[in-house]
């Protein structure tokens, strides 16, 4: 459930910051790292571990390691305490990522909200990275939930 006062304060943060792009980066997709990632995850499907497979591609969550240079935009208000903890990642796979692709990532604030439970109020800041290939096709979206104590 959302807290009353916190929700009011966060409404202004949402209004001012959600949807703002604040970081841009490129990432080169390399065969060896794609295979090593998949194998370490216990993957056996040749689409992910055999570079000779005609449909060879990156594992579904591969873009989650592509870190943005900045966690929050310059000037983002100090809400909650500390740096925050990693609350999880959500990945949408729009198209296969191939070796040799260069991915162009843009980072935005996707949402800011709070929840109150038995341990108090927690603030969730959702950072979204969208990855496009050289043709401009959206191939992956990663939402990262940063959780901070209110």
């Amino acid at each position, binding site marked *: 459930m959302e807290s009353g006062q916190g929700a009011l304060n966060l409404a202004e943060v949402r209004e001012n910051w959600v949807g703002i792009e604040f970081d841009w980066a490129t990432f080169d997709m390399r065969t060896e790292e794609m295979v090593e990632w998949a194998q370490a995850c216990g993957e056996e499907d040749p689409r992910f571990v055999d570079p000779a497979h005609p449909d060879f591609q990156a594992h579904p969550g591969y873009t989650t390691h592509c870190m943005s240079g900045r966690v929050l935009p310059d000037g983002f208000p100090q809400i909650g305490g500390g740096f925050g903890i990693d609350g*999880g990642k959500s990945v949408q*796979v729009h198209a296969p990522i191939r070796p040799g692709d260069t991915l162009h990532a843009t980072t935005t604030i996707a949402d800011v909200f709070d929840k109150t439970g038995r341990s108090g109020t927690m603030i969730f800041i959702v950072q979204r990275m969208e990855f496009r290939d050289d043709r401009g096709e959206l191939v992956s979206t990663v939402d990262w939930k940063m959780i901070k104590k209110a």
Partner: protein
Amino acid sequence: MAEPRFFEDIELGDEIAASQPDVTMENVKRFCHAAKHVFERFVDHDAARKEGFPGAIVPGIMSQGLLAAMIHQWAPGCTITSIDTVFRGSLIVDSKITMTGAVTDTDETKRCVELDLAIVAEDGRTGVIGTAMVEFPS
């Protein structure tokens, strides 16, 4: 790889057989190398303890990858179109962790299923929960 599984074989409530992935230090280091994610808390038990953890912890993004591999093992040839994981607690490197999954929804038109996912730590705590959408080939 396992035998093919077809969309027509799937029923609501079907469970993915529990499995125990490799989270030995050697394998976690391998993952961290691929992910360029080499923080001490993932690859050094003593350093992790100094940060307040019981031991080195499995990276959250690796736990998501382990679940994705489990899904591909369950349904070879399927396509994971989304996977969403929530990190609820630490999973310790060199421990025995258990992955599970279950079908919570099916869509005949899109030939896709929704899965609930979980990873339980050796001491019984739930470390990761999540969901995934999985498409089956025609």
